[in-house]
């Protein structure tokens, strides 16, 4: 089997380490190149035909006008220029999406952290609460849940009625441009269960002695939170932040359903992906939609990179423990 492998160059610094790793008893992988590629075949085929290939094609299409039926027509940076200078609905979709990400992600993470801390007191019932709080995370992406949400926030719906009872008269949330996006944000926050469960797992790693010692030294609850919980939990916060932000940028179903399929009142729910869908699959401007997809990719990459870069400043790894 190893004959297929080109021998490692003797001077390469990685070579000795590699040989050593393979010879370590109990820790070595099987040297089985042809079989390995047999196992990898479906994935490799998918990676080439459904990921890398389409990425190259969509990059090309983003510089063209393409309606699916005639040959793509090269327009250079025309799509991108139009996006930022001649397309108000595009800019609206950017604004709506940015507001959604900037409001719903921090809100969701705050709620999930607070509830995780509430549950992390090591007394009865935690299993039940944990499960109950997690349930919406599984249902949240569905059309059914979004339909319910729309009804709850409609004029005459329970939210309206309860707020009116409390003396705050609101219009139908889903039909008013000032409130519509807020109802979608709340739907996102409702699904705080998934990050909460991850926070809870992180909190369990914090030794109780740490808090006890700090308490004996006279640190109050807030200082213990600030100087023990937050730093120890920072890698988990980092992970949740990255994942939630990536998800939030791509939100679609709630915006589609709550906005009645057309971006809601005065385009208040015109999420980025919703506009992309409309442009690509209703207007058949596939080139423009591809350009939009690439801008989304770049923005997500930049945001992720920023979070990773700044992570050095606020994410702490306890060397021995956290790396395992």
């Amino acid at each position, binding site marked *: 089997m190893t004959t297929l492998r080109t021998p490692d160059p003797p001077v390469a610094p990685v070579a000795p380490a590699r040989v050593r790793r393979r010879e370590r008893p109990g820790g070595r992988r099987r040297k089985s190149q042809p079989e390995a590629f047999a196992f990898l075949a479906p994935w490799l085929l998918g990676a080439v035909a459904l990921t890398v290939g389409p990425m190259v094609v969509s990059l090309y299409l983003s510089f063209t006008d393409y309606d699916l039926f005639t040959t793509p027509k090269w327009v250079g940076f025309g799509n991108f220029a139009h996006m930022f200078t001649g397309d108000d609905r595009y800019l609206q979709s950017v604004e709506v999406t940015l507001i959604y990400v900037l409001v719903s992600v921090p809100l969701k993470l705050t709620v999930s952290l607070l509830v995780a801390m509430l549950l992390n007191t090591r007394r009865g019932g935690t299993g039940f609460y944990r499960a109950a709080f997690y349930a919406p995370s599984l249902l949240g992406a569905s059309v059914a849940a979004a339909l319910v949400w729309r009804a709850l926030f409609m004029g005459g719906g329970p939210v309206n009625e309860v707020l009116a009872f409390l003396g705050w008269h609101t219009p139908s949330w889903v039909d008013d441009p000032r409130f519509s996006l807020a109802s979608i944000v709340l739907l996102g926050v409702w699904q705080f269960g998934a990050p909460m*469960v991850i926070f809870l797992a992180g909190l369990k790693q914090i030794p109780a002695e740490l808090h006890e010692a700090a308490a004996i030294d006279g640190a109050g609850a807030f200082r213990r939170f600030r100087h023990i919980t937050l730093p120890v939990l920072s890698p988990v916060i980092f992970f949740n932040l990255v994942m939630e932000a990536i998800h939030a940028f791509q939100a679609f179903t709630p915006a589609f359903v709550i906005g009645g399929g057309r971006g809601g009142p005065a385009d208040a729910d015109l999420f980025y992906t919703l506009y992309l869908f409309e442009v690509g699959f209703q207007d058949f401007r596939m080139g423009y939609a591809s350009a939009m997809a690439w801008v989304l990719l770049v923005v997500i990459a930049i945001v992720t990179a920023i979070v990773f870069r700044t992570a050095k400043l606020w994410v702490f790894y306890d060397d021995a423990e956290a790396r395992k």
Partner: protein
Amino acid sequence: MTALPRTARSAGRHVLCLVIVAVVLYPLVWLAFASVKPPDEILSRLALLPTRFVFDGYAKGWEGAADVGFGRFFLNSFLVAGLSVVANVLSCSLAAFAFARLEFRFRGALFAFMLTTLMLPYHVTLIPQYVIFQQAGLVDTFVPLILPKLLATEAFFVFLIVQFMRGIPRELDEAATIDGCSVYRTFWHVVLPLAKPALVTTSIFTFIWTWNDFFTQMVYLNGTEKFTVPLGLRLFVDTSSESNFGAMFAMSALALVPIVLFFLAFQRLLVEGVSTSGLKG
């Protein structure tokens, strides 16, 4: 913090938790009751309980739209979700075994590539994929929904299974090799059975995500005959006059039943799977 006695604090915590439970579960309870209310009561009375139980919504909703019954939508959804589960578990565990257990050229680079595809928004590949399936005459079939899963494009599950397989002692497959097992037999008879928890997690999440998926199904399916449950529900979005509310909520409630059943059956596994792997609902 210290002023209150322990029992009082514990009781306070339970009260707070129960309040959150009530808020979190309210929309679902509301839906369950709305589906059996007389249509004119759904939005006009705040009370959860209906004055009388009416099951018209279920009867009317089940008739579906454009001569296609909701039963058909459910059948389609079960078909798509079921095949997706089989395809995903098979292809992802094959790839995961190679990454976790075998040595091959470019292993590191390919693994790194797989991890970066985790963050790739699928909108980037969507349009060329659509063009491919359209050229192949496969739009309005279930192929575009299932083929990507057969080709392990859901990197998340590959990663999940790799992580799990790494925890299985290597001595086991070495012993199998010494006993004369081929790599394939080692995979099938040694590693795969031991990776069962990861495969079950993959199955459940694939089912639920496919069941909930709306975007891809809307892009690829256009004939009402081929509609899945989310697309059937979508018909109510366009025509949600009050007379349709009963049917809409009845079918919404039914649409959530499989997920709720999965959740009740596997909640421990689901919740623990999330906390150890970072899966998102």
